[in-house]
């Protein structure tokens, strides 16, 4: 890894130079929540944000996504090849994108997702956990790759980790904005990380979790929570690793059709419905449990499908807590 320092006074110039790479999207405060939207001026950014409602997946797997247009009875691929910058992405969300990569880039790659991934310049940023975060237990609290530049807060600026050739080029071309990292900067970096590690209030015990959940298929805990759950699907929409989509053909005028995909949720009763009315997950219990299995699926090469971002907890209207459900299932079984 290459490390450089971005002094505080150069921050806004640095932000301006990134505009050469395309539109910049960053975290902006909206009442009491945050969203990634286009930002023209550093002042609009909320760099000490906790989490956005929708994770950055919305730039790669869009809530509504046009795939094809039907013109003269032939499909034409809809292309959106614009480069853009995602500014201020937290480590957990970077890990979320890496989990999506495993699905969308494996053979055959999804061309829409792939081109957006290639067109994105990702600037990570260090953060402090709040009461919902449990990324530390999942090892997603620090990103070793998956970004171009990563900014770590220092008292007088930023320690920048350079994570890709594209990132390196930006630093190279704007050398005058950066300085060498000093011993003192490294000490501050370490102090911040230690303070952060101590700030986590919530943790997930993942020891043997995959096996325990599998054994607890008939646990009463699933039932208890499935009764509390409203089946609204919020938790899946806001999750940085949820990715189910539905496809539909929309007539936009007499001879023009758009084939579009949009977010679907395994909480919807239609998710497992097939022809003839047969449903493979007919009850709320089946659907509730399925989500926990999907998020806690342990892939030996990639870990869990949850990055501990805390969104599902913060935005669940029934106040169901992810870690709590898993811990209760564990307790009941053991």
């Amino acid at each position: 890894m290459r490390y450089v320092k971005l002094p505080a006074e150069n921050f806004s110039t640095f932000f301006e130079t990134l505009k050469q790479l395309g539109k910049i999207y960053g975290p902006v405060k909206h009442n009491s929540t945050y969203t990634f939207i286009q930002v023209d001026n550093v002042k609009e950014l909320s760099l000490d944000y906790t989490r956005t409602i929708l994770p950055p997946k919305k730039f790669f797997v869009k809530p509504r996504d046009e795939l094809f247009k039907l013109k003269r009875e032939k499909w034409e691929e809809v292309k959106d090849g614009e480069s853009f910058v995602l500014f201020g992405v937290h480590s957990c969300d970077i890990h979320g994108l890496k989990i999506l990569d495993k699905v969308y880039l494996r053979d055959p790659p999804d061309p829409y997702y792939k081109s957006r991934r290639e067109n994105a310049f990702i600037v990570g940023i260090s953060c402090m956990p709040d009461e919902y975060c449990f990324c530390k237990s999942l090892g997603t609290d620090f990103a070793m790759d998956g970004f171009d530049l990563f900014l770590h807060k220092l008292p007088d600026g930023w320690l920048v980790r350079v994570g890709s050739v594209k990132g390196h080029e930006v630093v190279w071309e704007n050398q005058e904005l950066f300085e060498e990292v000093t011993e003192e900067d490294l000490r501050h970096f370490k102090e911040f990380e230690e303070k952060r590690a101590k700030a986590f209030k919530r943790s997930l015990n993942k020891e043997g979790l995959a096996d325990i959940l599998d054994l607890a298929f008939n646990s009463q805990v699933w039932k208890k929570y499935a009764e509390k759950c409203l089946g609204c699907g919020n938790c899946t929409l806001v999750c940085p690793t949820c990715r189910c989509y539905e496809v539909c053909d929309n007539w936009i005028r007499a001879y023009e059709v758009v084939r579009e995909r949009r977010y679907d949720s395994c909480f919807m009763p239609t998710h497992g419905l097939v022809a003839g009315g047969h449903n493979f997950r007919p009850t709320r219990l089946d659907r509730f449990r399925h989500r926990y299995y999907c998020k806690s699926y342990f892939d030996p090469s990639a870990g869990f499908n949850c990055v501990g971002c805390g969104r599902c907890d913060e935005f669940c209207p029934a106040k169901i807590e992810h870690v709590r459900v898993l811990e209760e299932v564990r307790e009941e079984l053991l």
Partner: protein
Amino acid sequence: MNPYQSYDAKIIEIRELTSREKLFTLRFTDREVEESFTFKPGQFVVVDLRGYGEFPISLCSPPTRKPIQLCIRRTGRLTRFIHKFSEGESIGIRGPYGNGFPLEKMEGANLILVAGGLGMAPLRSVLWYAIDTGKFEKIYLFYGTKSYEDILFRDEIIYLLKHGEKLNCHVKLAYEVETPSCIYLEKGFSEKVCKGVVTDLFRGEEFDVNNSYALICGPPVMYKFVIRELLDRGLSPGRIYMTLERRMKCGIGKCGHCVVGTSVSMKYICKDGPVFTYWDALSTRGLI
């Protein structure tokens, strides 16, 4: 190449198999695609009715014969729509998808095909592939149907009831609803046709379980009973193959609709399947 883009295919023939099922014979408009399109029995394609939507359908013709055929049951919005198409019209096809049956591995062994209702469609691909290549010891087909009127590929089934043994193919049929035609058929082939369900057809049949594979396709309820029958006879869970159905949108492991399993094993029916062994079902919850 965009994997969601379908190829243009012309419907060259439509045959009414029953009141609900039609057989569509298709040829790709692009000659190169038509010539290079290969598949394995058990694989499926996604049919693209441009402007209306897409749905998955098993290839029901054998890879040894061209052009390709799809047997489509009219059950809902899109299948009702395609039943209104005429010969000469075009649709879109993308695929083939899924793993298919590992038939190379089964060469030299007996194949026990167990079909229930529409499950006959993918198994017909295996059936004729096995007959055409002659690479298998003996082919058994146990087919359970509602009534005489519901028998898919009725002419082929009757032909095989008559002449199957010459092709090393032993066909038996069970029907549930008694109609004059069924009774007539039963009279003609008293050893091979009976009233009952598909598991009744196993009665009196002997096969070498160490040199046989079972291939099952039918409605979800059927699997449990057929598998029990096969296990009771000593067939290993690794020799029982079945093809499964789920809601599917992409067919290539992206949309998440067909995912089954738990925290220790998750499978995509479209990509890891639709063909699985009974052992897979034992180790992946929710598969059957």
